[in-house]
């Protein structure tokens, strides 16, 4: 059953079209992440769902009800913001109670809901404090609590972890995932952090320029990005893009990356649609390449080591391949020195071929 559904949503600020006829269906209990660079319209889309922005065209449904013209409070949503947005003059308890008091809930009901939320989020000792007396992580917990007490079907998160330091971000990320597993509410989560997206999401919607580029499960997006943008945005370190040209010999296509640099595409999904002489971009992630000193079986190419970046668990080795450069993720136990000649082996199951003109995956 769908929980949130956006139909042909268009939003204009004056003559500028920020979102254009966008469609999105989110299943009940799903954790959907809107991912994209800043200015891609992901927060705008979330604000439209929340009812904080008036849309120009289209419809928004939440829990089967058309809420296009409803006020935010009547939409059955709770929202968590990047800057926490706690009311500074109120204690944590009053922050949590504020919305419920406005809704004129009975006192004991308010107290019960606050107690429950405080237990779930482990913020009971903080209830009498003011936001200024809390750390960033505690503030964000309270902000989540404020959404929790509203007892709603849909939670909206607008970059909730972006203001926290790296360690705290990782901790709260795990807590959020646990929270979602326990509560099974629908959650829509906006972020520009691909790690958050990959770890939390049931499905990710990658956005750019007000358009959803790809809407898929995290691993599908990681392994089979639909275009160059998605491929480059997801993954860290990012995917290697090598310019090349398709050559078909005896019905078997391969991609030429330079003089004496041919990668046969046997085993690649869509070989049939490739045409001879087609200009392509060959994309392969650093973790899907193997680096050896000797010739191995499988498609492989010679390259020269440029430099090495040790990162603890593994190392990133930068290589020159003809006149193009690329990176390979290697085991940190094997060290390479600049100028060394090595052999790269490709894992074609995880490679992508994009049309150089349309930038779409082939």
């Amino acid at each position: 059953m769908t929980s949130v559904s956006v139909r042909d949503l268009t939003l204009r600020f004056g003559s500028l079209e920020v979102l254009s006829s966008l469609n999105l269906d989110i299943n009940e209990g799903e954790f959907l992440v809107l991912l994209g660079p800043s200015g891609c319209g992901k927060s705008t889309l979330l604000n439209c769902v929340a009812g904080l922005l008036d849309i120009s065209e289209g419809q928004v449904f939440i829990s089967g009800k058309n809420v296009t013209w409803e006020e935010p409070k009547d939409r059955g949503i709770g929202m968590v913001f990047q800057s926490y947005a706690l009311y500074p003059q109120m204690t944590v308890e009053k922050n949590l109670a504020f919305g419920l008091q406005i809704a004129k809930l009975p006192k004991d009901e308010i107290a019960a809901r606050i107690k429950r939320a405080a237990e779930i989020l482990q913020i009971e000792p903080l209830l009498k404090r003011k936001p200024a007396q809390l750390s960033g992580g505690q503030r964000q917990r309270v902000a989540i609590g404020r959404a929790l007490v509203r007892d709603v079907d849909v939670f909206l998160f607008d970059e909730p972890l972006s203001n926290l330091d790296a360690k705290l971000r990782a901790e709260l990320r795990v807590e959020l995932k646990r929270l979602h597993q326990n509560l099974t509410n629908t959650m829509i989560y906006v972020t520009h952090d691909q790690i958050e997206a990959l770890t939390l999401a049931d499905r990710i919607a990658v956005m750019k320029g007000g358009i959803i580029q790809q809407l898929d499960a995290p691993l599908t997006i990681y392994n089979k990005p639909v275009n160059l943008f998605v491929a480059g945005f997801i993954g860290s370190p990012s995917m290697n893009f090598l310019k090349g040209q398709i050559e078909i010999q005896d019905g078997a296509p391969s991609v030429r990356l330079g003089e004496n640099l041919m990668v046969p595409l046997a085993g690649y999904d869509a070989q049939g649609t490739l045409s001879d002489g087609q200009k392509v971009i060959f994309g392969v992630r650093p973790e899907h390449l193997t680096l050896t000193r000797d010739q191995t079986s499988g498609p492989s190419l010679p390259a020269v080591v440029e430099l090495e970046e040790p990162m603890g668990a593994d190392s990133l080795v930068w290589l020159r391949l003809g006149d193009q450069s690329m990176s390979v993720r290697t085991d940190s136990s094997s060290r390479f020195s600049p100028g060394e000649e090595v052999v790269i082996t490709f894992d074609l199951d995880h490679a992508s071929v994009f049309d150089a003109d349309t930038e779409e995956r082939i």
Partner: protein
Amino acid sequence: MAKVVNLNTNSLSAQSDAGDGSVAEGPRGEKPKRVLTRRNIILYGTLIVVALYYLLPLYVMVVTSLKGMPEIRLGNIFSPPVEVTFAPWVKAWSEACTGLNCEGLSRGFWNSVRILVPSVVLSIAIASVNGYALANWRFKGAELFFTILIVGAFIPYQVMIYPLVIMLREIGLYGSLTGLVLVHSVFGMPILTLLFRNYFASVPEELFKAARVDGAGFWAIYFRIMLPMSLPIFVVAIILQVTGIWNDFLFGVIYTKPDLYPMTVQLNNIVNSSQGVKEYNVNMAATILTGLVPLCVYFVSGKLFVRGIAAGAVKG
């Protein structure tokens, strides 16, 4: 080898052989502060001269107001009073004559209070809601409305004096305190609205959004979220309005009538009355009395004033 040990041991042992190692040599600890540097002499010298320059007239006023007329006639305006008398103060407050009326400044004082309180309350109440609406509820035409309001702040108000006389006459408020309160409220509107708008615009937008998700409407957000956060800017607005309205002379003399003249107008009439001897001590006392209200406001709320002026950086 000795140096390495030196670095690793505590400061006591480091001090003991401070002579041999280059690391331990030279100054350490707090830098000594010299009081009589050139910079300090110039800085404090200038400050003292400027302070004296501003305080001297006040000194002369206070001293003169405490002297009797015979002493004043001696002409030593800087000398302290030989015989301190408060009679000029009493006279200025309750006996000085303007025309036929001999009630002193007291009547003017109460008139001013009756003008001040409603004008300040009304103008700040309206302007704060204006500023809040302009900053947070971007209604259609908000920009235009704001521009018109700001343009209003730049038009010299002398231009509007006569039209306002006619308008007040037409609605029957000319020559009444209500009329003057209305004029003061209207003239305070542009600058106060600007003040409040900028303050509310500096409040994080997400706070406003969170309140909307929580179900708070226009007034609930204003009273329960915005107001409790904006004490500093209210203090600034109150100071601006209290001093502005209290010190106003022109509107008071134009839009009211002799019975209702505010304190400033009455002061002018006492000081400038051409009959009899010029009573300098009474005039000085009357002037200080008139200036006392804004002075008190500054003394009481000076700190909050500075904080409010600097309050662009309020974090949620």
